[in-house]
């Protein structure tokens, strides 16, 4: 019998594919591309960490772990979160090891969203947030931050977006794609509103290790916030372990057990060798994190300063590994800019518009690349801008 209908769910049919895909497809066919489009570290995972995974395989640790992850790893995570970010979580009941921060986001959304619940998503942001909210049956209500405020969420913006249906606010600082960091005093203002309206915060703090000017403040560390926050973190960015797919959630017991239900049915547990590697990373890897961070910080300074010199207005991002310069002076949309830059000068950047409201007029440039690549990229972008000026006259 012929197939007469689409088997794909309406909700999935409605989803738009990620805007990044288009640039990936285009860039992948070209030779000699200098890419500032990569959202992951250029460092390879520290050898001692890789070696720990190899050792675990040699010893035959190839079975499932507890659903929430190896207790030894959760204990290390609890210690790490306490020492680094001054937040206390019980390893047995409040920490779940996940398959990357991405899966952590997914179980967080699904655990708290009832049909029709509104989740506030602060844009520009990582491309999965709104789709994950919708897959969980909620409605993503977006707030667009702007370049004028350095892409910091303004308390009045948050206040204005809250309705009777609002369940949670999804925050990501240090931010992908803007690199913006909210310092303690910024977070206090946000936390006041969250408490006032009795909301939950889902805090994606995957870039927490990569904060360059002030040590990262976790929103869960503020008064009265721990009980209303799901913290999401992981090993991908700070520890240069993207391909291992290992993240974790920290949340009060009730929410954690709800997330664990989903996690045990949908995932069972995170990869065992990766979990052993992560134990090593937390026990002995902090020195390497610091040295990578030092490199990133220098590259950030270099990029911001270089962009200013070639006429691209750029705020100094406090964290992550992205700079988010304005390209409005060229008169191009961010998508036109990115496409022409790729075709003419073979530099891959990501148009700000793919990250949602507030992103138009900006491009995301990752500086997770060697200094020589960054120098070459700046040279090419400068040449591109000169040609643009020539055209405008």
């Amino acid at each position, binding site marked *: 019998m012929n197939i007469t209908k689409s088997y794909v769910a309406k909700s999935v049919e409605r989803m738009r594919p990620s805007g990044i895909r288009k640039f*990936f497809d285009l*860039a*992948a066919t070209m030779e000699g591309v200098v890419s500032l*489009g990569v959202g992951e570290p250029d460092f*390879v995972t520290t050898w001692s960490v890789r070696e720990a995974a190899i050792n675990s395989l040699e010893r035959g640790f190839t079975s499932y772990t507890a659903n929430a992850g190896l207790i030894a790893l959760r204990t290390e995570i609890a210690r790490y979160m306490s020492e680094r970010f001054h937040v206390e979580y019980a390893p047995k009941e409040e920490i779940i090891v996940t398959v990357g921060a991405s899966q952590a986001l997914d179980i967080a959304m699904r655990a708290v969203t009832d049909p029709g619940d509104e989740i506030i998503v602060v844009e520009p942001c990582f491309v999965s947030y709104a789709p994950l909210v919708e897959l969980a049956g909620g409605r993503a209500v977006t707030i667009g931050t702007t370049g004028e405020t350095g892409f910091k969420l303004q308390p009045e913006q948050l206040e204005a977006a809250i309705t009777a249906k609002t369940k949670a606010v999804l925050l990501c600082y240090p931010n992908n794609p803007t690199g913006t960091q909210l310092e303690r005093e910024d977070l206090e203002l946000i936390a006041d509103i969250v408490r006032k309206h009795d909301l939950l915060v889902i805090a994606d703090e995957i870039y927490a290790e990569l904060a360059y000017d002030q040590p990262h403040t976790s929103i869960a560390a503020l008064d009265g916030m721990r009980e209303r926050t799901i913290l999401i973190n992981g090993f991908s960015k700070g520890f240069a372990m993207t391909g291992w797919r290992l993240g974790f959630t920290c949340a009060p017991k009730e929410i954690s057990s709800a997330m664990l239900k989903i996690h045990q049915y949908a995932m069972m547990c995170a990869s065992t060798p990766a979990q052993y590697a992560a134990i090593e990373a937390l026990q002995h890897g902090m020195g390497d994190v610091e040295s990578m961070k030092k490199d990133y910080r*220098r590259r950030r*300074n270099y990029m911001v*300063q270089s962009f200013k010199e070639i006429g691209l207005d750029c705020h100094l991002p406090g964290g992550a590994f992205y700079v988010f310069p304005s390209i409005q002076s060229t008169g191009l949309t961010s998508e036109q800019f990115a496409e022409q830059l790729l075709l003419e000068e073979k530099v*891959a950047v990501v148009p700000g518009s793919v990250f949602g409201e507030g992103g138009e007029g900006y491009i995301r440039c990752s500086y997770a690349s060697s*200094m020589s690549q960054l120098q070459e990229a700046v040279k090419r972008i400068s040449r591109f801008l000169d040609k643009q000026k020539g055209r405008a006259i």
Partner: protein
Amino acid sequence: MKLNEKEVEILEILQKDARFEATDIAKMIGLSEAEVAETIRRLEEEKVIVHYATLVDWAKMDNYTGVTAMIDVKVTPKRGVGFDEVAERIYRFKEVSSVYLMSGVYDLSVTVEGKSMNEIARFVSEKLSTLDSVVSTTTHFQLKKYKHDGMIYASKREDNRIVVSP
């Protein structure tokens, strides 16, 4: 000599790659180009920056016969000058590329570079062993250089990351 944070940063950057120019270092650490250039000049003058050189993988050259040996040297220190005098007598030889005073079972670790094994053998038997203070030598020839001064020689690191990712 007390170094400030920026001076240390400049040294760290140059130690990784001596070819960074003052203009780029300036952007990386938030100083002016002139300040960086002046700091580098001062560090050179103070001999904190000792020298700039290039790591060469001579093994890549066809018919290259050069050899390197690491020699453990036991010596008798002298009253008043300790190991310094004999160390100096050794490091003055141009064949000697490094000399370290070591803890442990021997005293000086001497690296010698020569055109051939014979040349090094001659150096050890005629020059080094014959020094008054030298008690004994143990010569180890290097067979292959895997990593030197933090750089891995054999590997060609590829960037396996996908070109654009979220």
